């Protein structure tokens, strides 16, 4: 029951994200846009390219969807409204998100197309850049909660949300979240206008529909992740807890979609340089800062 409800919420969120993304990229607010797009995509022929690696080609989009759903399985929408509350929840989110890269690698290699393959390998490089900026800010979050349970991480923010307690960690994690969802300015694997869609270039019809649905679910999952780890999750006055999680997550998703509109796409080597030379030292500083505050100030 809980599982079905959470999946429904995720799908509704994915729909909202699709509307928002259309608004952010075309400048037009079309509430029925995703339905029309889906009908159009499902009506089209789903072409399989010549000498494709058929297994990877078929599995890629599905694995992308599964990894986004698995990450969402350990995120609480309200007290008790969680699919499974793992003792290693914060680590599990990261483990599930690692397979986003595997899925894009498969989708890139599968169709035997140049643009797709370049896009797929690019995302592997992107992961080398962003993965530390997922794990290290999460370490500081877990330090404060003294637990990897996602529910306890939310409860630890009762006095002050992590976005205020550790703003540097929030900024780094938010940027890494943009990179995981390959949203602009980190849309290197799809790169419209340069790679002609990259990993999505060779997908058509129903397969493309799954791919785009998976990407939208991924954005929702990351928005909920940011909400749970930094924005106090379900905490808030008056409204019921689930409403707070949903409201905050939608705001975060909107921020994720609109921020990149005003920044040019970052080149692969610049992305790696910035993430490694600035991101990782800042993330280490963040851990040190949080540790000092927790040990000295709070006690």
């Amino acid at each position, binding site marked *: 029951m809980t599982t079905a409800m959470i999946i429904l919420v995720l799908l509704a969120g994915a729909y909202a994200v699709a509307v928002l993304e259309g608004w952010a990229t075309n400048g037009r607010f079309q509430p029925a846009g995703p339905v029309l797009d889906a009908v159009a995509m499902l009506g089209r022929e789903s072409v399989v390219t010549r*000498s494709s*690696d058929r*297994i*990877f080609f078929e599995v890629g989009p599905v694995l992308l969807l599964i990894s986004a759903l698995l990450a969402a399985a350990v995120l609480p929408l309200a007290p008790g409204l969680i699919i499974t509350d*793992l*003792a*290693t929840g914060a*680590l*599990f989110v*990261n*483990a599930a998100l*690692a*397979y986003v*890269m*595997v899925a894009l*690698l*498969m989708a890139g*290699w599968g169709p*035997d197309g140049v643009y797709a393959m370049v896009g797929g*390998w690019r995302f*592997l490089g992107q*992961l*080398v850049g962003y*993965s530390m900026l997922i794990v290290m800010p999460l370490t500081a979050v877990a330090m404060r909660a003294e*637990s*990897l*349970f996602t529910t306890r991480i939310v409860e630890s923010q009762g006095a002050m949300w992590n976005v205020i307690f550790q703003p540097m960690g929030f900024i780094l994690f938010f940027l890494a979240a943009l990179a995981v969802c390959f949203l602009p300015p980190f849309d290197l694997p799809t790169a419209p206008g340069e790679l002609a869609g990259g990993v999505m270039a060779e997908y058509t019809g129903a397969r493309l529909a799954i791919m785009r649905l998976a990407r939208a679910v991924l954005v929702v999952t990351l928005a909920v992740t940011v909400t749970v780890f930094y924005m106090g999750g379900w905490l808030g006055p008056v409204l019921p807890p689930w409403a707070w999680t949903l409201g905050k997550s939608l705001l975060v998703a909107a921020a994720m979609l609109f921020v990149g509109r005003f920044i040019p796409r970052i080149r692969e080597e610049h992305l790696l340089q910035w993430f490694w030379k600035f991101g990782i030292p800042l993330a280490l500083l963040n851990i040190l800062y949080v540790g000092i505050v927790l040990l000295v100030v709070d006690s």
Partner: protein
Amino acid sequence: MLQTIFVGLFGIAAIWFGVVVFTTSSMVRSALALLFSQAAVGAMFLAMQTEFLGVLQIMMMGTEMSIMAIFMVMYMMDPGGLMGMDMTHQKRISQVAGVLGALVVVGIVFLVGWGSIAGSVPPDQQVHGLGIELMERSMLIFETAGITILTAMIATIAVALERRQ
């Protein structure tokens, strides 16, 4: 009972993906088959209630094996396996060694007295216990390993860098 079935299923999946690693001629398929073989081992850990170990295994193998895939593509002459390249050699010796090795392992499993099985520990206590272990008894080992790996990484990069004019 259910636990045994799942451990067995994931174990068979791990072996099957392991076989695929050597039977496919595509480098990327080979690397990703190894990935899923290791992920199946992670799932076995989960089925055996060692949650932290399982999640860690699944996470680490996802990234490591994919990075290995790109190196295999870079260095092999036929990464897609479209030219029917055969990488196997000394087949008879390998087969004999493989079968003998498997028999030895199976023998060890059944013939060794494993003693009493440790009682199950709740997952959150496992995480806590592991943290204490890393910060107390095993700290020196892990710090030494970490510094050694870091030194190796820096040395590798230094060797690989082009000399500046």
